[in-house]
């Protein structure tokens, strides 16, 4: 590991969070813009605190302490067993450089993961329950799966357990994005659509209020994603300096290909490029590319990004028009859809360290675990939380906007008039 380079990469990750926060608030309504930004900030804050207090103990790190259980003569490493409150670090920091890096990375990574569902709950998800969901994610969901993949847990030990290649997720396509996307899906189902979204069973377009913020957020996200991909790959897969450079190149290529694919797809389907879907294509490219980042060729990365960008535009339409899922920021399509594609793509295009079907099989086991274990867990946790802190704002709040309802002041008090607030209903 190259500590200086790793530290620089970790310090870039908050830019990804900034980018996502800008995208979320830009794609929401103006009457909820301040609420969206504050929710992102609170989510990051809660995630950081809870992860340090509890999450890091359960995430652990490679060659750290862990809980295991035995099944059919095999030992399954399923949960970290480090001391709570990161107590092991402060006592002996000079001998625990790697755990300290893992903790610093984990704080930002879990924060990024908790931001994703906020996008799906835009304009109707209450702040208290956003904080609660972030705490659950940072304290339970993220550490559990991160341990399995990045801290020598059972998904990383498929070779010893079953003679298969390890499930690989270099930049967090599964650990951050798919988990965040699954949480977004759960939140969207629990909240239901915004009022007025489906009148007479027809989807009504509710355009984002500031597309400039969205596109600026995409550019910030690129820098953050480069840091994220590089930091995770250096920390958990010990990639070489050359592979770090390839990671940077591939991140740019995958985002570019995703954006181009979305622009072309929307041009062909709607006769004009759609800015918000193109922004989604950009992020989808980053997400899909992060599973394999520095271990695939630039050509394969372009293909991965192109498919991710096209896939996202189709998924957004399917979810909104056919499944009645109101996801204002497209988080489910971008982070879940493109993330799953990226994981599968590693099996298809990753380095041939084993027979190709074995690589695909290892990736499919990870995907099956995400869908069959993590999604039910996330949804049950959200349903329980919804009983304690109801997710959805009341009907008046929905129309009034989250800014006035929850914060008492709007983001743009002097410039915006909401005509439909005065429409009889």
């Amino acid at each position: 590991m190259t500590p200086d380079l790793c530290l620089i990469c970790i310090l870039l990750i908050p830019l990804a969070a900034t980018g996502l926060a800008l995208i979320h608030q830009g794609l929401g309504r103006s009457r909820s813009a301040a609420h969206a930004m504050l929710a992102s900030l609170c989510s990051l804050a809660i995630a950081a605190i809870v992860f340090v207090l509890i999450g890091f103990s359960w995430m652990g790190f490679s060659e750290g302490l862990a809980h295991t259980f035995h099944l059919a003569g095999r030992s399954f490493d399923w949960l970290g067993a480090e001391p709570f409150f990161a107590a092991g670090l402060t006592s002996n920091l000079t001998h625990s450089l790697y755990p300290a890096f893992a903790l610093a990375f984990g704080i930002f990574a879990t924060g990024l993961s908790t931001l994703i569902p906020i996008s799906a709950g835009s304009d109707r998800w209450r702040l208290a329950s956003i904080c609660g969901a972030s705490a659950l994610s940072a304290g339970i969901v993220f550490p559990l799966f991160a341990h399995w993949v990045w801290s020598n847990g059972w998904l990383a030990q498929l070779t010893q357990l079953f003679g298969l290649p390890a499930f690989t997720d270099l930049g967090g396509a599964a650990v951050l994005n798919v988990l965040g996307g699954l949480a977004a899906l759960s939140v969207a189902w629990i909240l239901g659509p915004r009022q007025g979204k489906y009148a007479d069973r027809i989807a009504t377009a509710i355009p984002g209020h500031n597309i400039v913020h969205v596109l600026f957020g995409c550019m910030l996200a690129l820098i953050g994603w480069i840091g994220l991909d590089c930091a995770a790959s250096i920390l958990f897969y010990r990639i070489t300096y050359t592979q770090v450079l390839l990671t940077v190149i591939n991140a740019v290529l995958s985002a570019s290909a995703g954006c181009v694919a979305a622009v072309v797809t929307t041009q062909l389907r709607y006769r004009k490029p759609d800015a918000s879907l193109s922004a989604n294509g950009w992020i989808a490219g980053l997400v899909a590319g992060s599973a394999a980042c520095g271990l695939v060729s630039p050509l394969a990365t372009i293909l991965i990004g192109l498919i991710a960008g096209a896939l996202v535009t189709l998924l957004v339409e399917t979810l909104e028009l056919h499944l009645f899922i109101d996801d204002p920021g497209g988080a489910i399509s971008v982070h879940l859809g493109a993330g799953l594609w990226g994981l599968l793509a590693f099996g298809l295009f990753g380095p041939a360290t084993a027979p190709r079907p074995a690589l695909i099989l290892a990736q499919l086991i990870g995907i099956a675990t995400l869908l069959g274990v993590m999604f039910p867990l996330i949804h049950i946790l959200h349903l329980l939380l919804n009983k304690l802190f109801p997710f959805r704002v009341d009907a008046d709040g929905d129309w009034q906007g989250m800014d006035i309802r929850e914060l008492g002041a709007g983001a743009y008090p002097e410039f915006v008039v909401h005509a439909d607030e005065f429409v009889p209903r």
Partner: protein
Amino acid sequence: MSLIGYLLMVSGWLLAFTSLFLLAGLGQRLAFVIAGVLVELLGLTLIALHFRSLQRDAE
């Protein structure tokens, strides 16, 4: 329908996971893991249809 969907998702994972213990051949394992993922997707589809029908009733 929603509960059945969730049960199918968990069952899909169990199908994929147990195949790793019970089967040795790469092709057999791959077939069963793909089948497990398909069962999970079927469960996810059922849940999605359930929520869609809820939404349609509410409108």
